[in-house]
């Protein structure tokens, strides 16, 4: 024991520094106080920031830690939304059970995507997940008896307890905080380290005895679970779901949030989500062409801050410290 602790611990420091804990608590406290300051409309936006931040974070598990960029997460997210709305409105289940079913469906879909995509990497992974997402979109559009086709599904599905928009926000904040902590813990687990190993060199991982496909499959499934949790909260938030919830644009927007925040920064997802949602709101009051604005934003980020907002700030802070 003594000779282990005497030498410096092997590997990077892993426990949260006091500074990081204080920052996290401060951010959560401020976030918890927002309902006292914001209008209903702006609190709705803040709720969306949390929900989509969680989705962006689930993408970052794969993009930032396994080096696999998914363009299918909007579909995974949206399937959960569909299942929740359907389960409450048509099947008459309680919202809680519906949410669990939604997360389950998203996890299963993540597993299916994973099964098909794990043998690929780079642009092939991107295209394959894109294609899978489009299949899901096509099904949601055409399977009219269940999904309502283009009209989608609508209904007040929020439980009475959460009907107040403040209560709902606090619920979303609590769930998101717990789940992001879980994601943070997950990427720092021994399993999370194997994903980073695969990102750096899958051939070396194989030669060390790792079944790379299995690890990516597990990673994709876990990522799907968190995307599904975001999708379930979105169902309660929006009380409406249509094919646009599972559309490619949803995947692109969520991925853009991940990139804007900083791939591999994990919590940058919320910064990216806030930035994109703020921009969307400002832009949409001036122009109808939100997609164009989004595209231009994407290009600007790739040119001027490819490491994202949080990634760039981190790099600046690191440079100042030297």
């Amino acid at each position: 024991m003594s000779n282990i602790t005497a030498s410096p611990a092997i590997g990077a420091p892993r426990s949260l520094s006091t500074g990081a804990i204080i920052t996290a608590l401060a951010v959560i406290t401020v976030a918890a106080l927002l309902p006292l300051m914001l209008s209903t409309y702006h609190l709705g936006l803040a709720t969306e920031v949390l929900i989509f931040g969680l989705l962006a974070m689930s993408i970052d598990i794969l993009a930032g830690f396994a080096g696999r960029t998914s363009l299918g997460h909007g579909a995974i997210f949206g399937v959960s939304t569909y299942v929740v709305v359907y389960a409450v409105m048509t099947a008459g289940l309680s919202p809680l059970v519906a949410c669990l079913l939604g997360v389950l469906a998203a996890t299963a879909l993540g597993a299916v995507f994973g099964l098909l995509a794990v043998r690929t990497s780079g642009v092939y992974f991107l295209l394959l997940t894109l294609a899978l997402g489009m299949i899901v979109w096509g099904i949601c559009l055409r399977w009219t008896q269940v999904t309502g086709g283009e009209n989608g599904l609508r209904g007040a599905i929020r439980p009475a307890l959460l009907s107040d928009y403040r209560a709902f926000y606090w619920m979303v904040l609590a769930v998101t905080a717990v789940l992001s902590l879980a994601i943070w813990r997950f990427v720092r687990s021994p399993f999370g380290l194997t994903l980073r190993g695969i990102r750096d060199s899958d051939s070396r991982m194989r030669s060390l005895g790792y079944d790379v496909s299995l690890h990516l499959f597990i990673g994709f499934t876990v990522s799907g679970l968190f995307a599904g949790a975001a999708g379930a909260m979105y169902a309660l938030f929006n009380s409406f779901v249509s094919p646009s919830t599972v559309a490619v644009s949803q995947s692109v927007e969520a991925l853009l949030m991940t990139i804007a925040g900083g791939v591999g920064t994990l919590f940058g997802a919320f910064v990216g989500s806030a930035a994109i949602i703020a921009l969307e709101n400002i832009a949409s009051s001036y122009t109808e062409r939100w997609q164009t604005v989004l595209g231009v934003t994407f290009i600007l980020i790739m040119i001027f801050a490819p490491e994202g907002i949080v990634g760039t700030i981190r790099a600046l802070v690191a440079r100042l410290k030297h």
Partner: protein
Amino acid sequence: MSNIILSLTDVEVAFDALKAVNGVTIAVPKGERRAIIGPNGAGKTTLFNAITGVIQPTSGQIVFDGHTITRLPPHKRARLGISRTFQITNLFPTLTVGDNMILAVRGLSPRKFSLFGSPDADAGEARRIAAALEASRMHERANIPVKELSYGEQRQLEIALALVTEPRLLLLDEPAAGLSPAERSIVAEIIRSLGRELTVILIEHDMDLALGLVDFVTCLHEGQVLVEEPPSEIRNDQRVQEVYLGKPRHA
């Protein structure tokens, strides 16, 4: 038979029309130090890829320690005790030396599946990591990101990663390529000090280095075994000189 840990029978690896490995039959006894030499493009690395499962042979049979491994995926061969280094450095560049070693040591342990546990090395793992770093002269560098290591240190880490799981067969693909003379002698020293329970196959272009380390030499040429001899005879072998020594390749 019992003495032979690795045997290849008529192994062929074809890339379209090119037979990179063309009917190779070799047998390596337990504990032997074997060099595989041969000019560029002779098929040495491809032979390693066939033994480790990176590439499946087009035909032929590979038996390791009584198991037919011809069609096994690489990670299953690693589990049987086959370990390798790469000609082109193949590490985890963004991770620290310590994390590289942790990944290596956990490749064969169920702990790699722990989803929420602590990622740090436990006492047993730390001991094995320390031993492998020590054996490859890499101790005291544990907390440095690999991309910040010198090339020579990266080559040493290549060996440390391959050693930490205590394999039974170690394949070294030009471990000293591109190193300074001083660094070469470190690598030679590392190889020389490996225990005899480990079988070592070494690909090396540097004759002085290779011949001083091994018991037996296989010379490949155009995917085929040209000669197999002890080191003392290789230097004077006419055929080897023709294909290999006669044409100096290193600056």
